[in-house]
C-alpha cells in the first residue's frame, strides 16, 4: 500500500491549572502543553500512541503547517507517522507533545512566571524525564486516554518511553525504545557539558534572563553564538565518522588552501549552517535544561546501579532498537536494557540495525529499521 501524509495539521494546547511537583523539589503552579494528534481515537480508546521527542524535537511529529511550504514545515518524524506508514494513522491515534520546559508552545523558560509576571528565564526549574512523563500523563487524562497502546521515542524520547513503563506500568502496553539508553555514559555527559558551557559563557546569556535584554541592533538578545556552538558539537556526535567522510571528506570550499579562519573545509560550512539554523528556532534555556534531563536520567540510580532491579516494576512489552554506527547511544546500551528486561521475564524484541548514519539513523527510513518497526506496530492488538 502506498503511504501518504497526514496532511495539514494545527497544534493544540492543553492547560493544567493544578500544580505539578517536580523531581527537583520545585513545583510549577500551572502549565500548558502544546500537542498535536493524528488519526482518530477509537471508541474503546485502545489505539492511542504517544510519540516522545528528543533534544531538539517537539510536538510537531507529522504532517505540515503550511501547504505552500510543506518541506520546511514538515513534522520531524513524518516518515514514520501517517496513513500506510509504520505508525499507521488509519489504525492508531497518535499524539505528539512538546515537553515541559520546551520552547515551542509548552510552558518553558520563555513563558511568563505568574509570580513575577516576567519570563521565567533562569528561574524555570530543572525538569527531568520523570517530570515530563508525569506531565504527559496529565495530558493523557485530559484526552480520556487511560492506557497507551504504545509509547514510542528515539534517543531522549526513548528514555521517556522507558520511564512510562516504570512510572505507570499499567498505562502503557508497548514501549518502543529506539537509539536510546537507560543511562548516559560519562562521555555523553561530557559532550552535554561542553554544550552547556558554550551557552553559559556567551555574553548575551545574561544569567539566563536574556529575554529582558536587547542587543545593539535593538533586537531581543539571545546567546546565539553559545547555542550555535552547542548545536555544532552535538551535531557532530549524532553523525558517524564514515558518514561525514562520505558526505564531506576533506572537500574544500574554495578548491585550495587559503590559510585563514573562515570556512576552508565544507564540513565547517555545514556545521556553521546547522548551528545558525538551530540558534534561530531553539531557546538556549530549553537546550540547557534538556541536556540536564538527559544527564540525570538513570532509573537504576535508586537501586545501587542495578538496572535489573529498577525495571522490576515494568509490565509493558518492549521493542528496542539501536544502530550499529551510533556511538553516542551505542548498541551496547540498548543490549544492557534488553538483558535487564529479559531478567524480568518481559516480552522484548531487539533490532540492531546496520545503518551508516550514526545516532540520527533513528530519524531515517532505513528499510530494515522500518520493516521491523512496521511488523511490531502491526502486531499490537487494539
Amino acid at each position, binding site marked *: 500500500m502506498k503511504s501518504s501524509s497526514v496532511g495539514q495539521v494545527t497544534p493544540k494546547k492543553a492547560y493544567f491549572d493544578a500544580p505539578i511537583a517536580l523531581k527537583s523539589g520545585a513545583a510549577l503552579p500551572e502549565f500548558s502543553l502544546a500537542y498535536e494528534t493524528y488519526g482518530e481515537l477509537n471508541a474503546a480508546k485502545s489505539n492511542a500512541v504517544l510519540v516522545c521527542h528528543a533534544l531538539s524535537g517537539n510536538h510537531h511529529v507529522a504532517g505540515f503547517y503550511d501547504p505552500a511550504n510543506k518541506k520546511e514545515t514538515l513534522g520531524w518524524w513524518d516518515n514514520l507517522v501517517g496513513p500506510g506508514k509504520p505508525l499507521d494513522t488509519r489504525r492508531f491515534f497518535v499524539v505528539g507533545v512538546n515537553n515541559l520546559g520546551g520552547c515551542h508552545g509548552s510552558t518553558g523558560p520563555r513563558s511568563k512566571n505568574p509570580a513575577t509576571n516576567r519570563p521565567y528565564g533562569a528561574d524555570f526549574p530543572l525538569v527531568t524525564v520523570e517530570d515530563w512523563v508525569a506531565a504527559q500523563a496529565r495530558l493523557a487524562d485530559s484526552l480520556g486516554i487511560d492506557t497507551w497502546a504504545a509509547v514510542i521515542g528515539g534517543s531522549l524520547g526513548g528514555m521517556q518511553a522507558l520511564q512510562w513503563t516504570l512510572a505507570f506500568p499499567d498505562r502503557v502496553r508497548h514501549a518502543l525504545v529506539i537509539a536510546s539508553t537507560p543511562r548516559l555514559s560519562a562521555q555523553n555527559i561530557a559532550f552535554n557539558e561542553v554544550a552547556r558551557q558554550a551557552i553559559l559563557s556567551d555574553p548575551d546569556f545574561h544569567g539566563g534572563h536574556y529575554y529582558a535584554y536587547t542587543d545593539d541592533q535593538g533586537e531581543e538578545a539571545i546567546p546565539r553564538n553559545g547555542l550555535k556552538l552547542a548545536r555544532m558539537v552535538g551535531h557532530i556526535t549524532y553523525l558517524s565518522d564514515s558518514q561525514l567522510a562520505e558526505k564531506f571528506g576533506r572537500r574544500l570550499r574554495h578548491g585550495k588552501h587559503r590559510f585563514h579562519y573562515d570556512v576552508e573545509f565544507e564540513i565547517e560550512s555545514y556545521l556553521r549552517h546547522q548551528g545558525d539554523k538551530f540558534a534561530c528556532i531553539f531557546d538556549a534555556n530549553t537546550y540547557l535544561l534538556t541536556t540536564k534531563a538527559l544527564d540525570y536520567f538513570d532509573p537504576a540510580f535508586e537501586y545501587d546501579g542495578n538496572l535489573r532491579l529498577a525495571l522490576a516494576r515494568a509490565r509493558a512489552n518492549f521493542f528496542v532498537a539501536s544502530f550499529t554506527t551510533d556511538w553516542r547511544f551505542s548498541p551496547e546500551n540498548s543490549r*544492557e536494557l534488553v538483558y535487564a528486561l529479559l*531478567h524480568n521475564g518481559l516480552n522484548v*524484541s531487539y*533490532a540492531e540495525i546496520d545503518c551508516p548514519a550514526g545516532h540520527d539513523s533513528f530519524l531515517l527510513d532505513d528499510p*530494515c529499521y522500518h*520493516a521491523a518497526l*512496521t511488523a511490531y506496530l502491526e*502486531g499490537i492488538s487494539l
Partner: protein
Amino acid sequence: MSTPHSRMDGRFDFLHIARWIRENERVLDLGCGDGALLSLLKREKNARGYGVDLDAKNVAACIRNGVNVLQFNLERGLSGFEDNSFDHVIMSLSLQTVRHTVPILKEMLRVGHEAVVSFPNFGFAPHRAAIAAGRMPVSRHLPYQWFNSPNVRFFTIADFEALCAEENIVILECLSFADGAFITDDPNLNAEVALYRLGRPDLTA
C-alpha cells in the same frame, strides 16, 4: 549468525523438539530463523520464548510471527544471558555454522538447564559417496557449494558424540532421521540429521 536452512526442511524436527519441552517453559532458540519453532512452542506448550538471529529479514519475520527476537551475534557468545535463565536453549540446524563450537555448547548449558541441538550429519552415506567420488557433498540438508556455504564446521554424529564425551556434556536423548523417518540402524551412516537433548553432569545425577 542466521539460519542457513529453510525452516521448512527443519520443520519435522520441530515436532520432536516440541515433545521435549514441558508446559510454560522458558525457551531460547539460537538461530531462530522466522520464529516458526518458537511460534509452535508458544501455541502447543505455552512456552515463553525468545529467538536470537542476526539476519534482519528474520528479525522482521519473527516480529510478524509474534515471536520475541533478539538481533545478537552469537559469535560474541551468550555472556549477557544469566545462568539457568532458560529451561531449554535450542540450536536447530545451526551448530555447523558457529565457529566457536565448544564455547557455544558450554554457554547453552550454562544459560539453560538443558540444550537441544540438531545438525546435518556429514557422515550420511550419500555424503561419504560424494567424497569418495571426489566431490564435496551437496544434499537437501547440505544445500550449499563449498564456496558459498555458511557452514564452517564439518562433523558427523560420531564426531559430535566424541566431543560430548570429552567435554563432559551429557547426552540425555538422541534421535536420528533420514527423509523425516527415524533411523536406528547405524545413524552415523544412515541419518541425514541428528537431534540431541543435552544436559550437565550436575543436573543429571
